[in-house]
């Protein structure tokens, strides 16, 4: 039995080598070479130019992650408290938007948020603008929603919220109900039960939810272009430009991708260190 085990691992090893290790190696090689594949550090020394894009990307991803957490945790908690029938339906409803193409979803938001989009049409139909203009003597015909950072964050929250809800929900739903009863028995009211038992025990779910939202949010592209109107460029868009856009330079693109990857890995490492104790406890 023991001898056969390495044999089973072969497909995975090949897969990992082909599709995980090789691309990373290629990214590293590209990052440290010129177009003629001569070794260089130039791709990194010029990185400072893009500092504002780096900070914006991480800032917006962080905000989106926080918003996802604030919306996602209560939803997960309430879902876990309901009956199994409700849980099934809720899970499907949460997954449903993900079956629609990512770009399509984002285009949909465009037509909702546009200056003469659905939302503004709705506001004008209910006479909101007339009311405001009458009250303050202003002359606004629409709210500017598209081409703002808010729209970018909204797009990310909408797209990544399921990745926050599902891991948190699956941890909470598995929590032993007798722990809640034990805490009540020891004098804890429902707020204390949540604060001292459920919240700390659901941290592993929160951690993986945060990871699953933050990482794709940092490197997201298209959302900022479509909803941010190109004025709020993010790392994903920058990298995309280096490979597909007019600024064609895969070597610089690789360097940016590498730096981003390192920062993300450091972020995750710090966070997992922070959550290690709880993680272990739940393994019990």
């Amino acid at each position: 039995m023991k001898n056969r085990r390495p044999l089973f691992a072969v497909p995975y090893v090949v897969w990992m080598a082909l599709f995980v290790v090789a691309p990373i190696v290629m990214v590293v090689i590209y990052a440290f070479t010129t177009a003629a594949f001569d070794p260089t550090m130039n791709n990194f020394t010029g990185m400072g130019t893009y500092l504002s894009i780096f900070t914006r990307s991480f800032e917006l991803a962080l905000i989106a992650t926080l918003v996802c957490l604030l919306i996602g945790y209560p939803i997960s908690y309430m879902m876990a408290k309901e009956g199994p029938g409700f849980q099934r339906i809720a899970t499907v409803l949460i997954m449903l938007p993900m079956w629609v193409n990512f770009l399509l979803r984002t285009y949909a938001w465009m037509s909702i948020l546009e200056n003469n989009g659905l939302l503004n049409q709705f506001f004008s139909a209910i006479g909101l603008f007339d009311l405001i203009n009458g009250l303050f003597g202003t002359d606004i015909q629409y709210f500017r929603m598209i081409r703002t950072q808010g729209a970018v964050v909204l797009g990310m929250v909408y797209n990544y919220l399921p990745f926050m809800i599902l891991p948190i929900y699956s941890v909470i739903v598995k929590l032993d109900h007798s722990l809640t009863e034990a805490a009540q028995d020891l004098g804890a009211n429902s707020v204390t039960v949540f604060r001292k038992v459920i919240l700390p025990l659901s941290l592993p779910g929160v951690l993986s939810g945060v990871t699953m939202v933050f990482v794709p949010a940092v490197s997201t592209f298209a959302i900022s272009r479509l909803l941010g109107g190109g004025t709020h460029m993010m790392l994903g868009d920058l990298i995309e430009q280096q490979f597909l856009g007019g600024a064609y330079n895969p070597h610089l693109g690789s360097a940016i991708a590498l730096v981003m990857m390192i920062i993300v890995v450091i972020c995750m490492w710090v966070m997992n260190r922070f959550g290690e104790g709880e993680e272990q406890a739940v393994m019990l």
Partner: protein
Amino acid sequence: MSKELIRLVNCSMAFDGELVLDNMNLYFNDSEFLTLLGPSGCGKTTTLRIIGGFITPTSGEVLFDGVRMNDIPPHLRQVNTVFQRYALFPHLNVFENVAFGLRIGRTEEKEVNGKKKKVKVRIPQEEIRQRVLEMLEVVSLKGFENRRINELSGGQQQRVAIARALVNRPKVLLLDEPLGALDLRLRKDMQSELKRIQQQMGITFIYVTHDQEEALAMSDTIVVMDQGRIQQIGTPEDIYNEPKNAFVADFIGESNILDGIMHEDYVVEFFNRKFKCLDKGFAPMEPVDVVIRPEDIDIVPKEQGQLRGTVTSVTFKGVHYDTIVDFKGFKWLIQTTDYHPVGETIGIILNPDDIHIMHKSQYSGMFGDYSSYSEEYEEMDDVTMLDEEEEGSSREDGHEE
């Protein structure tokens, strides 16, 4: 004698229309070790959860010191529970698990400047520390404060659960099959440990188990339950020696139960033969259930026996042999230290104090025949019973009213 702490008055509990607890009347005294004993589904855990406040009875009242407690949530009750699978907090170490209840401030009504105010009362850190360490010593876990819960064995986790409950100085400790997950050896150790802790702390233990040996070994009072009803309340000796019906006789220890007729006081007839017994107060010629404990039967040479039978099977049990003997088609279990081979015809002698007489009940004829010995235990849990006539004799001394 001892003070009454908790009283259940006409408590009934139904889940989805199914009656789990049927008009229960029971009281619990100060500093006694009371066991609720019965097969699974008999309502014993339901009773415990009603006292703990996790469920509210469908009808009836729960009184603590005479005050109605039905709608008081668990966190405001002066009882603590040791849960079936401990329910220790995996994210906290041993010390913090035990300190959990102490760290939660309690709101108390206090008069401040003549006005009634709700004040949060917190126990000072140093006192918490002292009480936790003291309690860990009581449960023999000194030095384990910083261990994680998953580093502990089952028996140690058990003790943490007990310490966590007791450190709050409850008036009553509820224990829901706390030893069920432990192996036999550890279970025996913990039994005496629990008894010791109960005596040391001097508080009431309400203990739920389906293990009759456990109940006999630890309890001051045993409440035998079945079908959501109390079948008998008494000391372990009472329950064993004077079972009130066939269910109790069969559930507590092994019993041969057969039909008999009470001719007059102290005379009972079965197998067409009259025997002397110590029971009285039955109607003349009343049909009764006769209980004979397998260890009370003396095997003698067939010529000297009051009854004669043939050995049909012998099982070695360590201390004794389980010998199944066929008496005119009715199989008895006899426990003796002497070996009698299969096929041997033996005689038995029954002394008056070996025979115990019970009134007929809904359980008559269901238990006490060893024709299908090995299957008996499995069957017991899922017998379904028909409606039965109310038993007049269930109003007795002791706990029931």
